[in-house]
């Protein structure tokens, strides 16, 4: 996506952190995402399970 369209130099947006190519790649890399899918589910289940008595 073209960021420049809406982000002017030295505007507040300019100071946002930006992902590297490797991070973007991992976000789409299926084996890694399958692993993440498992992790997110486990963490969510843990949070739900301990949430009420």
């Amino acid at each position, binding site marked *: *996506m*073209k*960021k420049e*369209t*809406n*982000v002017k130099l030295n*505007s*507040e*947006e300019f*100071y*946002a*952190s*930006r*992902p590297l190519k490797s991070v973007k790649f*991992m*976000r*789409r890399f*299926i084996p890694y*995402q*399958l692993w*993440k*899918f498992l*992790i*997110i*589910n486990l*963490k*969510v*289940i*843990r*949070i*739900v*399970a*301990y*949430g*009420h*008595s």
Partner: protein
Amino acid sequence: MSQVVVLGAGISGHTAAAHLKRMLGKKHNVVVISPSEYYQWIPSNIWVGIGKMKEDQVRFKLDKVYKKWGIEFHQAKAVSIHPDGSSESEKPFIIAEYTDPKKRGEEISIEYDYLVNATGPKLNFIGTEGLTPGQNTQSVCTSSHAVEAWENLQKVFNKAKAGEKQKILIGTGHPTATCQGAAFEYALNVAFEARERKIEDNIEITWITNEYELGDFGMNGAFVKRNGYVIPIKEFAESVLFEYGIGWIKRAGVYKVEPGKVYYEQLNGSKNEKEFDFAMLIPSFTGAGIKAIGKNGEDIQDKLFLPNGFMRVDADYTPKEFEEYSVNDWPETYQNPYYENIFAPGIAFAPPHSISRPMKSINGTFIFPTAPRTGMPSGVTGKVTAQNIARIIKKGDKTLRHRASMGKMGAACIVSAGFGFFKGSAASMTVNPIVPDWEKYPDYGRNIRYTIGEMGLAGHWVKLTLHYMFIHKAKGYPLWWLLPE
């Protein structure tokens, strides 16, 4: 035989009714009163609003499910609660007005032994001048609003495709609106769709919010573990918006909308305008507006409701400074302090105060997000309410054993950022507890051990799984009760 009446068939009321019937069986009656013939899985409205799901994929008719479960259903809207009965009868009752087309406008009086008020929020569009969904602005708060939003968004996309520059504004439509997460998701999905259609160069998207910092989401922000650091969600939110090409206006209280123009005040007192071709703005929320009436017809509103229309429960409503806010202010059983047979789970309960710091502009306007109550706490509180009522009815023991405080329960926020099994994306975040507990967790207010702050395809799969899982559960398909709230 006891009769439990549940007002509202949303996430909280439907969960409560389903568990009540499962636990009470045929010996007792469960009655649900809700104005729509449908149950809708509101979180997926975002996908209806970008044309990725049809309305019927996020909703289903309630009568079939309730018939199967043996729950009595009235398509009606509760108008008053009479907890002391009337001059003719001791028994408490409610009055509802049918919205069912066959009996529209007729009133019905239903007695109860236990009452669950799960009427959620009233979308208070009239709280902001000109904030009319389908006219000046759009909404995705209901599935029909989302259908309309998508129809209008397509017009903007078509103009952009034809080379016309288009301005899109998404965010909060009132200085104290909440539910930022939903609007944030919508902004990301709209940006994603614009990119898919290769029209992003002609579309300027702006996120407008009453948050002090991005990522506040009405929970005073949060911290997550990421790449060897503990970072504020603010950083995460700014980074995601930047990546999606979305600019932002923060600390902004929208007070007026005209066709194509929004007026807002910022915390620094400045009054500004922003033009748009398409705007999706979340209204403020109030309670459902049900009246509370005493035995002789007197007004007892104060016993059941706070002035904002949300129901008074076991929270500490003493006015306090932000520094004195405590997790112990938050309710655990959702029982009304004056009537022990009335409960209010989900959004219907009145929170003791905000979670974010209340902020006032130099003109004296409050500009900050009020407390959100998302799907998970709404479902969980619906379930504990059902467990407590079922226990009282079955065992006769009035001790409320089941408790769920937002100061103890965590929440998972899966913020959709694009649709598609291989192309989709979502930001997955967890917070635990929802309301910061500064005594227990002095550094961050929350336990950061099990937090996540991840962006990627896996989040989209989780969000999609949740959609199908919760629809399966709500329809009462096999083993539904094993699925967590």
